[in-house]
């Protein structure tokens, strides 16, 4: 639980600092015409979509921190934990996911520079790498299963399947958003109009890449 609590503490400290800044030296009971400057103005870069994604990513982080906490606690609780060596395929998959993230970054840049061709290429490549990653993860499951890493019997293997599945499900959810964006590109929407969708996809992918790196380190080190 320590990791989860540290994450929550950081998050709540940020919230608290922000709220204190809003409320210190403010006299709410004084009626006045709103001025051009308000202390609680969010910076213009914080659009509703970005803030929404940020909140969602905080929820996903909380979810994975709790899963990792459960992982650590289960590791210490019984004496039946047999470390599994993650299949070597995971290294390849990691590279594939990095490529996917880069491709979506390319798409985002293209959307900003109003370049429909590169945007389309970036989106397609990003999706293809992601699907490849998921297939790779399934192959890694097979590999582990072939090496005797069954779902039951060894909690380390159970957790391996659990955390990779949870990460994969989040990618699949991302692919839904990706598919909707791609459909809009195919319908001929201009890059400027789908900039927000592409941007959200790219940010979400970067987040899931970071998350995967964290999970991979966890799987390698235990």
């Amino acid at each position, binding site marked *: 639980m320590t990791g989860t609590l540290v994450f929550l503490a950081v998050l*709540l400290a940020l919230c608290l600092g922000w*709220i204190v800044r809003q409320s210190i030296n403010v006299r709410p009971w004084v009626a006045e015409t*709103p001025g051009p400057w308000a202390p609680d103005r969010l910076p213009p870069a914080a659009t509703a979509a970005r803030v*929404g994604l940020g*909140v969602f990513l905080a929820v996903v982080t*909380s979810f994975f921190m709790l899963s990792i906490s459960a992982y650590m606690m289960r590791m210490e609780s019984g004496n*039946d934990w047999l470390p599994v060596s993650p299949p070597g395929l995971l290294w390849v998959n990691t590279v594939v996911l990095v490529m996917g993230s880069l491709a979506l970054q390319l798409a985002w840049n293209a959307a900003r520079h109003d370049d429909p061709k590169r945007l389309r290429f970036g989106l397609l490549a990003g999706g293809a790498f992601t699907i490849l990653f998921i297939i790779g993860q399934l192959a890694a499951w097979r590999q582990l299963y072939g090496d005797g890493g069954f779902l039951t019997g060894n*909690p380390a293997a159970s957790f391996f399947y659990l955390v990779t599945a949870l990460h994969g499900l989040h990618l699949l959810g991302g692919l839904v958003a990706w598919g909707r964006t791609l459909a809009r590109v195919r319908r001929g929407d201009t890059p400027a109009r789908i900039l927000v969708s592409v941007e959200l996809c790219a940010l979400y992918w970067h987040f899931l890449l970071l998350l995967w790196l964290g999970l991979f380190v966890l799987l390698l080190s235990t």
Partner: protein
Amino acid sequence: MASLGHDATSYAPPLEMEEMELAHPKTFIGKYIWSQDAKVIAIQYGITATAIGMVALVLSIMIRLQLGFPETFSFMDPSSYLQSVSMHGMIMVVYLLTALFLGGFGNYLIPLMCGARDMVFPYLNMLSFWMYLLAVLVLVASFFVPGGPTGAGWTLYPPQAISPGTPGIDGGIILMLVSLALFIIGFTMGGLNYIVTVLQARTRGMTLMRLPLSIWGIFMATVLAMLAFPALLVAALMMLMDLLLGTSFFMPTMVSLGEQAGYDGGSPLLFQHLFWFFGHPEVYIVALPAFGIVSDVLATHARRNIFGYRMMVWALVAIGGLSFIVWAHHMYVSGMNPYFGFLFATTTLIIAVPTALKVYNWVLTLWHGNIQLTVPMLFCIGFIFTFVNGGLSGLFLGNVTVDLPLSDTYFVVGHFHMVMAVAPIMVIFAAIYHWYPLITGRMLDNTLGKIHFWVTLLGTYAIYYPMHYMGFAGVPRRYYAYGETGFISDSVATLNSFISIAAIVVALAQLLFIYNIVVSRTRGEKAGRNPWNATTLEWQTEHVPPHHGNFGPELPIVYRWPYDYAVPGAKHDFIPQNVPPEDVEPASADDPKAD
């Protein structure tokens, strides 16, 4: 407000967000079924939550019939008793209270009180309700599967919840876990809306420190829920794997029904940690909106500004933060390192400080107020009493040494029903009586409301006060029947019958309330605009009930906080938030209020 120059006195900053594009459906289905309007979604949430809440109410009556009159009713056996208890708890906490406060009042009040046309992501908001409805339907389906619904307690502790012989093991428990997962996914969609709308879609002049406390309460509760519900989701998923796939996350090595079960080395304590990491914040997910709403309703009906507004906001935030580091006080009886027990007892007692602050501020708001004993006000005062009573017994239970002997007795049942069942429900009633005129344009019947209040208040005390004494007498909870024991006196049986009769009376009073809601919808007295003379924006809309898009062609501009009641020197005893300082009518010289 036609022309706004840029001089110092009448400058209004531009909208932070551009005017949003609203979906304008034309058909009945688009307007009222697949609706993206937060007000309609709120009512959908409200009706669904109330309907499933009525099921839980019936279950509680079945529990009380069994306890009050054992061996009388053939439809109650040990299994159905445990199933009634489990489903009653789960429905009331998650599917009624959480859904009604956040999905119901959150959806209705956030856009209106912030001065927005709708939630920021209306489509997601609609999906949120339909996920919730699906979760409720899956839950209801568990009544009809072979073996019936879950009987593993609302806490679903393993190994009980996974062992053969537990009621509901054939499917009810699986459906319960699936339903919870759906609920959490649906809630996350709604929660995104509540948070981002409060952060991003406030109208001009609505600074954070001018938000009504209702919004602060709902906002903080949503933040808690977004961070705490994932713990329940993780626990539910892992338990599903234990149940269906045979993993051993939570299941220890054990002998079940004379045979070695196929599990090895799992940790039931791990489940308890995950569950209560959600479970304790859940108490505040229900309590914080109640705290917020009660502050607004009290101020309005006492015609006085809320005492210590900023303190109230900080207290909400502090309670929210602290609620994440007290969870293990639910696990004292599970056994833990004494130092941990000490730590969690300390944090538990510390959380009483901001909570007590809020109670003092409510009472100080009433002090010298021009108290109108309307039905919403009665329920608010009822809330303060009940919450203090329930909270004080919480101070006892927060200590490890006191908790250990009391934890498995009726003392705990009395405590948590007072503090997190009756108290928030009182606020829900207050809120419904307060905002019903806005939602429907009609007033609820006053006499029926007063009968409803007095029967509910006195009735719940008749139910839960005696439980504290039963707890001291050592009567254990969770038992289907007590039979012949050496330590439970005969008077306990009499007391149980008394409690059951009180419970039935209280339940009947709720039917009166439902009747009032249904009948007043068409026959109630017309409310007109702002019947309570309130200051917040939801009462300042052009139409009552507010139309699609909430406000007229222009969004309101906010000049003041929501608590300008009985302002010295003003003619009226309230100044709505959207009245500019120069438009406030001064009191005439012979008015006694003028000085």
